[in-house]
């Protein structure tokens, strides 16, 4: 099964496909010739070794909010998720399914501005998360009524933790 990742380095976009099969791992960049890699990570978080064409590649891969930072050969490579770069430019960033709002980046949830039963509108700030000493507002992606709140203000939250559920409403005119 191939997994497809739109990635960006130095403002250039690439489509990268990874195919894990019985005969090894194959990578395709922008529909080119697939190349076989032997990849392994170690017990140390992020340390990745790749053997490609019998040459060794050692890198340290650190997740960032919009992609990956990779140190290799004492140089830095910033590989961003192309979607993330586009979305951050547009100001939105949520990939939540309708009816859920989750934490977009790890941090401390400093504020939850809504309660169960409140009506929310697209663009409303429902919560604030502090990460790397910056306050990030979490906005509602659509309209609805809050049905359940899963986190408390002051809680540490990881990326993807669900903050609240809401009942999606069709019209903006509902209470």
């Amino acid at each position, binding site marked *: 099964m191939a*997994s497809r*990742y739109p*990635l960006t*380095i*130095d403002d250039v976009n*690439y489509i*990268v*496909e*990874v195919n*894990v099969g019985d005969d*090894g*791992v194959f*990578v395709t*960049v922008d529909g080119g010739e697939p*190349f076989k*890699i*032997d*990849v*392994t*990570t*170690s*017990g*140390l*978080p*992020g*340390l*990745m070794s*790749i053997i*490609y064409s019998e040459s060794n*590649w*050692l*890198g*340290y*891969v*650190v*997740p960032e909010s919009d*992609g*990956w930072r*990779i*140190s*290799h*050969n*004492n*140089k*830095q*490579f910033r*590989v961003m*998720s192309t979607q993330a770069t586009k979305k951050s430019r547009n100001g939105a960033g949520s990939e939540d399914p309708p009816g859920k709002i989750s934490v977009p980046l*790890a*941090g*401390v949830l400093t504020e939850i501005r809504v309660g169960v039963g409140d009506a929310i509108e697209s663009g409303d700030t429902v919560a604030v998360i502090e*990460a*790397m*000493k910056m306050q990030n507002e979490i906005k509602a992606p659509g309209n609805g009524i809050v049905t359940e709140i899963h986190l408390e203000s002051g809680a*540490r939250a*990881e*990326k*993807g933790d669900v903050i609240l559920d809401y009942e999606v409403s069709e019209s903006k005119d509902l209470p």
Partner: protein
Amino acid sequence: MFKRILIANRGEIALRVQRTCRELGIKTVAVYSEPDRNLLHVRQADTAVHIGDGPATESYLNIEKIIQAALDSGADAIHPGYGFLSENADFANACVDANITFIGPSGDAMKNLGDKVSARRIMEDADVPIVPGANDVDPADLAAAAASADRVGFPLLVKASAGGGGRGIRLVEKPEDLENAMRLASSEASSSFGNATIFFERFVSPARHIEVQIVADSHGNVSAFGERECSVQRRNQKVLEEAPSIAVTPEIRKRLCAAAIAAAKGSGYQNAGTVEFLMNNNGEFYFLEVNARLQVEHPVTELVYGGVDLVALQIAVAAGGTVSDGLVDSGPIGWAIECRINGEDPYENFRPSLGLIDYVEYPNGPGVRFDSMLFSGLDVPVFYDSLLGKLIVWAETRDLAIQRMQRALQDLVISGPQTNIPFHRELMNNPDFQAGDIHTNWLENNFSMPVETKTENELNLALAAAAIASLLKSQNATGQAMSVSRSSKWTAAARKNGTQEVVISSGESGWRRGIR
């Protein structure tokens, strides 16, 4: 001998001094600021004393707190390392007042050598060649100053007597610029150092920076351990040092060491120190200044003098031990080079680059020494200088030492902040450097860092690594088994950790980070 030594420093030099103390069976006391809590010098010391917040003025430069820490921990001596309080006469005197041995020269010797005009006079009296110049220029008496300047010759430097770190220095190319330069240097000196005294010095250029390592005991003996060359400099900061110097013949070495010994004796110097000289292409050298402390680059001397431990000698002479008098004849043997590994981005005009060290791999093997504060997981604090470590190699000849350094630079892996390793690699490949055709302005005038290049292969593998990381992350999130390679369940279990994220921990200071 001392029972317990407090090391009033941090980073690699604190570790360097600790190692010698441990070998000698002396207990160590570390001092640390709040953001340095995780550093190795704190963990490896026998006793660790918290002395204040991050800014150096509240911790490593705070004489009162450090003396108190020494008294509280029962230390009978203090080693100051380099930087911070190492050349502070008040600190040396405060140690004496508290009945603690200061491992270094006396406060008086520091004061006399720290003032450049007084140091020039001491050297003149001791028959040490100084840069031709004019001492004690009166900024108000322009006619006399102009006559002095004529005698010195142009181009010349107008310098502040209390100057340092490149401040209070003006280059004057022609007589009509003299008055203005004098006014600027004098007012800069007055506001920066509280002392408006200026003097003239002939501008020696091109010149090599050659310095002699000395160790003086309290019985009047001074040992000279040959020279180091530190001509590769940026903004008056050394970035690479070597020993011996390609430009120093055995005959010049004899004269250099004799001058350094005379300088030490003339100033009543004790303990380890460095006498710095400028040397022109004819092998003529002039006294520049004395660094009254252990130098960053001391390991290159240790390696070419049979592995002598200069810190052990410092401790021995501070405890009243003796050294032999004169030029040490056990070296130089072979060649040693040191590269300063700094947290700075050579592709962005050497802008500081600090932060979490994700991963570090130390170089090893024959002839390689890495004096460093680094470990995987260290968060390099922003309050101090950018020196992360010193990569030092030894080999039989200069050419072989360069080859070995190229290899060691390849073996050293630092992931996290950008370091100047790519710069040192370029330097090792530079034909001028390889030929030893260098002087103190060479780096700034003749060397340019090539723009960063990423090969197609490197880009493809970075993309592959990011894609694999994304795949592992999504598999991890959905609880699927890891399936990118055919390895055993043991590596699969380890690999699971590989997808964990680096997060900010809620450490009380906010400076500490860790890995979830």
